[in-house]
């Protein structure tokens, strides 16, 4: 049996003090994604299914490339925050830590790969 008082048990177990920052980043990215995703749906949708040469030529134009690069980066940043919240809600212990680290790494890897590909297509 533990002789811990309620006061002692609570000490140091408070919030990580980063919740407001997390929420603010989700708000900023969600607002940014509203016009970005709409623009991406109709630019990416226009070339999806077209031949290779047409796709390369399309993404050498500035606006489609900027929209694609920004949408990929911001949406993976937004996903990174959202999936972390979901993992924190449903996964416990070591698996929680492992899942959060794994999903953050996946998010930044996919964002980097996507932005690199768009830049290479555009230049």
């Amino acid at each position, binding site marked *: *049996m*533990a*002789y*811990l*008082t*309620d006061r002692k048990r609570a000490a140091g177990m408070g919030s990580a003090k980063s919740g407001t920052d997390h929420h603010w980043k989700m*708000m900023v990215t*969600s*607002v940014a*994604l*509203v016009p970005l*995703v709409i623009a991406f*749906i*109709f630019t*990416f*949708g*226009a070339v*999806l*299914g077209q031949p*290779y040469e047409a*796709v*390369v030529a399309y*993404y050498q134009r500035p606006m489609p490339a900027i929209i*694609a690069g920004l949408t*990929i980066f911001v*949406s*993976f940043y937004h*996903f990174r925050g*959202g*999936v972390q919240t*979901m993992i924190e809600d449903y996964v416990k212990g070591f698996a929680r830590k492992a899942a959060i680290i794994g999903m953050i790494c996946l998010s930044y890897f*996919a964002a980097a*790969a*996507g932005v*690199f*590909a*768009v830049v*290479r*297509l555009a230049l």
Partner: protein
Amino acid sequence: MRNNGAKVPGQPARYDAKKGTEMADVNRGNRPLSPHVTIYRPQLTSVTSIFTRITGNALIVAALMIVWWFVAAATGPEAFATANGFVTSWFGDLVMFLSVWAVWYHMLFGIRHLIWDSGHMLDVPRSETFAQAAIIASVLLTIFTAIVV
């Protein structure tokens, strides 16, 4: 916050002072919890809320397919043919169609969160009206996108 085993009207005593447990609360984690999803009647506000989370996280599938498509296009014609063939296959089409709905839905209900965060529309009737309108709008926008794109 000592209870000392005193019975609160309508609630069972949570502590037994005779057992000496009021200091190291051994009953921790075994207290009555608020009604949880398994016994709580589904409501439009709660169902649309969980679907916001499901759609947002499920969009990772389409997002990774799109990144693969861009990397393949930047790599060369052979790689592009493989990725483009997958993305435009019947399976890829199905994922993309469902993801178009998911992205519209997630966007509309994300806007609902932004409205709530600003302190507006916090009553149940208007939240439910918005939910009904947003469900219909997400379907209409999906059909519109499928026709235009």
